[in-house]
């Protein structure tokens, strides 16, 4: 099927008149949405083909988020990054073809009538870059895109699985709001380093991600990190995390 998105005018209307429309979100009123989008000029069909993904709707988001990153990235891998930065595409999907998933993922927010979080879940309300990692659909695609490792043929999602294994929402924002992690070589280097800690039985926490990017930010002030290879980044992060978290002894033992 063809991917649909909403017109700029519709996007503006939904965003600006949210207060008017909010009860339809709270009541998950499909009939109202269906009629609204039937109006002329509201929805456009794009040239992008895709197979409707089957989302994981497990009780626990900790399980489903991880699976759905893979599900959505597999289905929409062929989107160009320019397309994937468009609010009208992700807001469109959340209201149209992926509306069921959107309601599922906003279950708690809808119950609590947390309008602020409903807004950031389906619209871009946190700036162009950050929103990509906050919007409940965009972030699935973007985490897939940023962590997909083509070089691992048996499981290109090995970094994805690790990254999404816990603390998904916070990790997305903390890790990918740094400009450094725009470079996939750097991102892969950091993740490979942290994944080793996990393999050694160390409980990986948010702070491990924070410290790794913080350190590279400081180093990046005096050198162009983008010149380094994944291995070089990985080694730098290994060394720093071992020192910062006092892991030198364990590191040598293994």
């Amino acid at each position, binding site marked *: 099927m063809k991917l649909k998105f909403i017109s700029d005018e519709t996007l503006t209307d939904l965003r600006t008149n949210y207060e008017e429309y909010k009860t339809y979100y709270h009541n998950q009123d499909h009939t109202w949405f269906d009629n609204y989008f039937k109006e002329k000029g509201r929805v456009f069909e794009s*040239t992008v083909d895709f197979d409707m993904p089957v989302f994981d709707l497990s009780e626990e988001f900790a399980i489903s988020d991880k699976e759905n990153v893979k599900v959505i990235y597999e289905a929409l891998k062929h989107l160009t*990054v320019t397309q994937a*930065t468009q609010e009208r595409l992700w807001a469109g999907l959340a209201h149209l073809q992926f509306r069921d998933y959107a309601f599922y993922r906003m279950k708690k927010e809808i119950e609590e009538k947390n309008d602020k979080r409903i807004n950031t879940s389906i619209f871009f309300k946190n700036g*162009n870059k950050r929103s990509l990692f906050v919007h409940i659909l965009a972030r699935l695609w973007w985490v897939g895109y940023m962590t997909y490792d083509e070089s691992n043929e048996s499981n290109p999602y090995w970094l994805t699985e690790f990254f999404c294994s816990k603390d998904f929402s916070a990790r997305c924002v903390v890790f990918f709001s740094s*400009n450094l992690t725009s470079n996939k070589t750097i991102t892969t280097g950091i993740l490979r380093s942290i994944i080793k800690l996990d393999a050694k039985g160390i409980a990986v926490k948010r702070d491990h991600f924070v410290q790794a990017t913080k350190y590279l930010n400081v180093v990046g002030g005096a*050198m162009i990190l*983008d010149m380094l290879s994944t291995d070089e980044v990985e080694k730098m992060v290994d060394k720093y995390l071992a020192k910062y978290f006092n892991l030198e002894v364990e590191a040598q033992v293994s």
Partner: protein
Amino acid sequence: MKINTSYPYPVLYMNNDDYTKSSFSSQINVSESFGEMHIHVSFQLNNIEIKRLIDNQSAVYLIHLECGQTSYRNVFETHSEVLEISVPTKLLRGKISIHSFIIAKERIENYKNDSLNEWYQHIPITFEKGNLIAIGEAIETTLFDDNTELLNLPSIVTVTKSLKNDYMEVDIHSNNITILLPEYEYKQYASSGSSRLKETILSMVIVPSLVYVFSKIKDNSGDLDEYTWYQVLEKIFEENNYRLEDVGTDVLSPLKAAQLVLRKPLKASFEEIEKLNKTED
């Protein structure tokens, strides 16, 4: 990318006085055409020792390209004074910053330079790989959305089934360009939308059709310019700094014009085939 005001080593930079009688500057020109952003950079370096480092490959001229919105970040290196870069615009959106540097490509110990400020004389200096030796100009440019890529509107090519033809034909005498395919070919084409050879199949059908269309532009028989497809193509060419009237003349051949409009279709096809071959291995 943030540029610091001071570094733990000397940097040739217009905003400091780490060096005397030396300079580094770069002229960056950006243009956009048919889905690619072209960046032309020429570097001017006035410092013999740093020039020597570049000549013996210990250092490089480097361009750092960053687009925050699409999370694109990449570097391009060269040892020559001119650098040409092409980046597909589908990777970029909004603000793009371009910085120029000279960077240590390896560890450089006991660095000496006669033009160093007095302050640095007699101090041992070491550059690590990736350290900045010189900072040149930087520019910011903005790339606007290309709606034609996402939108099906205005779609100027229709592929349809022909019940009586055994060969592909193209009709240009209506508002849309109509490609007529024999029944079997049409069925295959229509079901290839999500195939792993999508681009290849598209190239097989659309490339020769557009070559045909462009071969007809020059004689403009039957007032082609009244049709929507002609006007749309005219606009696309104009936006990309070409003239549709030039297609079919010495300036631009129909073959190249078709490949420009479809944004290197052969490359996309062969990439697809390469990928397919790889998965089969």
